[in-house]
C-alpha cells in the first residue's frame, strides 16, 4: 500500500512539557490506523498538528510525498484532512446545512452569497450518504445529541467532495459520547470509508481499537512505543504497552454484603418523574452500595443523576435521603443535603478554569475547615485540600497550578476531591466518571471511588460502557426511555452477560 501521509522527526514542546519527541508516522492508503496512549502521551497534539490547529517546532510533514505546512484547519480541510472532534464542533444557532459546509467552499455559497435552496440540497446529499434523515434547514440547537453527532460525521465526510484523491479522516475519541447503536453506525461508516480514505482512529476503549483498525500504534510521552498489526497483538498486551505495567486482575471484593432490599436504605426514590425524560421511577440505594446505571443517550440515566442533584427543571415525585425528604429545588439544596455530583461535562460544570487546584478543591466545602462557618481559614483548608489531592494521586507540581494545565484524569480527580473533602457527604453521583480518561487514570479513579464506598458512601454512577458497570458496580440498573428495564444484583452473584445488558438497553 502506498504511503499517503508521513511525519518525519516531528518535535513539539509546550514549555517544559515534551508533547512529541522526534516522532515518526506513516499512514497508508485505505488503512485504519488505531492510535492509543494515556492522556498526555501526545495523541491529541499529533491530531491537532494534522488538523492544522498547531504547527510542529521541527520536523516535516509529507502529504503524498510532498512536504506541506498545514497552517490552519481550513487549509487542512482543503488538503483533504478532516477531524471528528471529541466534543461537538457545531454552531448551535446555525442550520444543519450551514454547519456541514461551514469550513468548505461550496457552489451554493460561492462569492459569499448564500443560495439556500442549493445549500440545503447539497446538505441533503451529504446526510443521505450516512443514511440519516435530518432536515438540513433545522437549527442544530433543535437537534438531539445523537442527531448532532450524525451531523458532525456528515460534516467531516463531506470532505470527500473537496478533493479528487482519497481524504484523511481523524477520529478523536468519537465513541466516548456515543451509544452502542451510534457506534455501530459509525463503524459501518468507517468500514465503508476505508475503501476510499485513510483513517486515524483514537479511542481509550481498546476493544474498539482492536475491532476497527488494521494497525495499532501505541504512544507514551510523545514517543512511539509500539506499531503492530492488530492480529499480532491482544488487549492485555496493548494495555501493558500503554500503561507501562501489567494490568492487575482485580477480584470483586466488597466491604459488607449489602442487600438492595434493605429496610431503610440510604437513598429512597419513589415515583420520580421528570417531564418526558423518565416517569414514575423507583430506586433504592443502600449505604456503601455502588449502583451503576447503564443506558443509551436519552435513556434517562444522566437525567436521573441530575434530577437527584436538583439540576433538572420540571420534577415531581419523592426522594428520601436517610428517611429525610430530599427532593432538591436546586444544586445548592442538594449539596446541603449531602449529595455530590461529578458532571460529565467537566470543562463546563466541573472545573473553575483559570483558578488553581486548591481554589477548585475548596470552593464548596472549604469553610467546613474554618474556625467559623463564615470565615475562611486558608491554612486549614489548604492542608485538607493538599491531603486529599495526594490521597487521590493528583499529579501536579503544586496546589497553586491552574487546573487547565492538568491532564483530564487529574482534573477529574480534583473535581472529585472537591466533593470528597466534605465530612458529611452521604451520596455521590457520578455522570460518566471515566469519560475522556485513559485506562491508567480510570483505574486510579475507580480505586478512589471503591475506597469511598468502603467508607460507607452511597454511590450512583452512569457508566460509559457495560463492562465498566460490571467492573465497578455492586448493582447494575439498565434504563431505556426513562424506564428501568433490568436490574442485576452482582452481590447475589447475578452476573449478566454484556448481551443481556445490551438487549435491555435497546
Amino acid at each position, binding site marked *: 500500500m502506498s504511503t499517503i501521509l508521513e511525519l518525519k522527526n516531528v518535535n513539539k514542546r*509546550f*514549555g517544559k512539557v515534551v508533547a512529541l519527541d522526534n516522532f515518526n508516522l506513516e499512514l497508508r492508503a485505505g488503512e485504519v490506523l488505531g492510535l492509543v496512549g494515556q492522556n498526555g502521551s501526545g495523541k491529541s497534539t499529533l491530531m*491537532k498538528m494534522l488538523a492544522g*490547529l*498547531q504547527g510542529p517546532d521541527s520536523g516535516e510533514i509529507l502529504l503524498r510525498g510532498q512536504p506541506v505546512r498545514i497552517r490552519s484547519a481550513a487549509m487542512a480541510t482543503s488538503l483533504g484532512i478532516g477531524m471528528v472532534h471529541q466534543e461537538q464542533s457545531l454552531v448551535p444557532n446555525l442550520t444543519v446545512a450551514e454547519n456541514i459546509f461551514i469550513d468548505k467552499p461550496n457552489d451554493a455559497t460561492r462569492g459569499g452569497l448564500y443560495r439556500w435552496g442549493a445549500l440545503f440540497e447539497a446538505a441533503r446529499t451529504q446526510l443521505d450518504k450516512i443514511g440519516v434523515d435530518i432536515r438540513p434547514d433545522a437549527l442544530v440547537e433543535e437537534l438531539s445529541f445523537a442527531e448532532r453527532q450524525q451531523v458532525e460525521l456528515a460534516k467531516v465526510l463531506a470532505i470527500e467532495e473537496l478533493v479528487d484523491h482519497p481524504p484523511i479522516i481523524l477520529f478523536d475519541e468519537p465513541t466516548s459520547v456515543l451509544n452502542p447503536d451510534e457506534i455501530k453506525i459509525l463503524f459501518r461508516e468507517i468500514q465503508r470509508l476505508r475503501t476510499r480514505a485513510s483513517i486515524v482512529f483514537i479511542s481509550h476503549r481498546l476493544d474498539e481499537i482492536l475491532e476497527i483498525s488494521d494497525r495499532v500504534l501505541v504512544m507514551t510521552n510523545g514517543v512511539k512505543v509500539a506499531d503492530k498489526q492488530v492480529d499480532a497483538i491482544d488487549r492485555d498486551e496493548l494495555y501493558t504497552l500503554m500503561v507501562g505495567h501489567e494490568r492487575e486482575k482485580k477480584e470483586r471484593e466488597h466491604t459488607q454484603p449489602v442487600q438492595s432490599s434493605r429496610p431503610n436504605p440510604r437513598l429512597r426514590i419513589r415515583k420520580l418523574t421528570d417531564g418526558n425524560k423518565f416517569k414514575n421511577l423507583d430506586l433504592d440505594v443502600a449505604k456503601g452500595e455502588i449502583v451503576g446505571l447503564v443506558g443509551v443517550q436519552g435513556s434517562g440515566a444522566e437525567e436521573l443523576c441530575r434530577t437527584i*442533584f436538583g*439540576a433538572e427543571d420540571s420534577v415531581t415525585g419523592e426522594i428520601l435521603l436517610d428517611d429525610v425528604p430530599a427532593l432538591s429545588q*436546586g*444544586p*445548592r439544596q*442538594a*449539596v*446541603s443535603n449531602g449529595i455530590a*455530583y461529578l*458532571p460529565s461535562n467537566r470543562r*463546563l*460544570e*466541573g*472545573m*473553575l*478554569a*483559570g*483558578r*488553581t487546584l486548591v*481554589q477548585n478543591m*475548596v*470552593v*464548596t466545602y*472549604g*469553610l467546613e475547615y474554618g474556625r467559623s*462557618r*463564615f*470565615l*475562611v481559614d486558608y491554612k486549614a483548608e489548604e492542608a485538607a485540600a493538599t491531603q486529599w489531592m495526594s490521597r487521590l494521586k493528583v499529579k501536579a507540581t503544586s496546589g*497553586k*497550578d*491552574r487546573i*487547565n*494545565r492538568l491532564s483530564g484524569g487529574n482534573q477529574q480527580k480534583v473535581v472529585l476531591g*472537591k466533593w470528597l473533602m466534605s465530612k458529611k457527604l452521604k451520596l455521590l453521583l457520578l455522570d460518566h466518571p471515566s469519560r475522556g480518561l485513559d485506562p491508567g487514570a480510570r483505574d486510579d479513579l475507580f480505586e478512589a471511588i471503591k475506597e469511598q464506598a468502603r467508607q460507607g458512601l452511597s454511590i450512583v454512577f452512569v457508566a460509559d460502557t457495560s463492562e465498566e458497570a460490571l467492573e465497578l458496580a455492586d448493582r447494575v440498573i439498565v434504563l431505556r426511555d426513562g424506564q428501568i428495564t433490568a436490574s442485576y444484583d452482582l452481590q447475589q452473584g447475578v452476573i449478566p452477560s454484556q448481551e443481556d445488558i445490551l438487549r435491555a438497553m435497546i
Partner: protein
Amino acid sequence: MNATKSLGSNFGVYANQARGLIPLLVLILLVAGSSLFAPGMLSMGGLSSFFTDAAPLLILVVGSTLPILAGSIDLSVAGVAALAGVLIVQLHPIFGVWATPVVLCGAALFGALQGYVHAKLQLPSFITTLATLSIVTGLALLLSNATALPIPDDDSIVGWISGSLGPVPNSIIVVIAVTVILAVALRYTRFGRDLYALGAGERTALMSGVNTIKVRCVVFALSAFCAGIGGVLLSSITGFSSPSIAGNLLLLSIVGVVLGGTAISGGVGGLGSALVGGIITSWLRVITVMVGVAPTTQNIVFGVMALIAVMLTTDRAKIGIVK
C-alpha cells in the same frame, strides 16, 4: 488558545501577581510624566484637593467593580448616586441626621432588588440596570423637581465628610475605609469566595452549590450602597444635591474599573487595583489642564490615554475569547 495557556503556565503564579501591579506602574508613570508640567499637583494642597474631587468617582469604581467581578455590569450607579443625594435632602425633615444612613440602606435594598430581578428572571444585567438607570434618574428629577437644593447645615454626617483630618480629606478616609472592609470581606468570607467562583465559571459555581442568586443580590446591593456613598460624597463637596450632580460618572467609573485590571468578562481583578484604576481615571480627567493642551482636545486626549492605559492593564492571558 493552547499557546495562550502554555504562556500563562510559564510564568505561573508570580507572573499573575506581577500583573496585578501593572495598573500601579501605569499610575506612577502617568503621575511622574504629567507632574513635570505641573509640579504643584504633588503638593500637599494639590493632592488633598485632587483626592477630595476624586473621592466620589473612586467609591463608584470600587462599587461597580464587584458586579463586573461576577461577570455582570451595573449601569445604574450614577443614577443611584444622584438619587441618594436628592433623598438626603428630601428625607432630612423626617429622619434629621439619620437621613444619610437611611438613604444608604435604601440604596442597598434597591440594589439587592435589582440583583434579584436580574438573577431570578435571568435578564441580562446590562439591560436590567439600563432600565433601572432611567427609572432612578426619573425619580431623582421628579422628587427634586429638577432643582438643586442645599444640604441642611445641621446634617452633621455630610458636614463631617466635607471636613478633613489635617491635610487628609475625610471623604477619602471614608473611601479607603469602605474599600478595606470590602476587600477583607472578599478575601475572608464565603461571599468573596463565591463571587470569584461565579466570575471564573458560573455554571461550575452553580453545580458546586454556590447560591448564585444570593451572591448576585449581595453584589448589586453593595455596588448600589457604594453608589449611595458616592452621592453623599458629591453632596458633601458641593453642599447641594441635584439630580444631575452625578453627570457622566457612570462612563468614568467603567473606565476606572477596567483600568484597575478587572476583566469585563469577570473573575479577574480586585478592589485594591480598582482603587488604583479610579485614581488613574481621575488623573486623566485633569491631565489636559496640567499639561496645558487646549480644552477642545481634552476628550480626544482622555479617550486615547484611556485606551493606551487599558491596552497595558488588561490581562489577556486569563481572558479566552474576548467579546
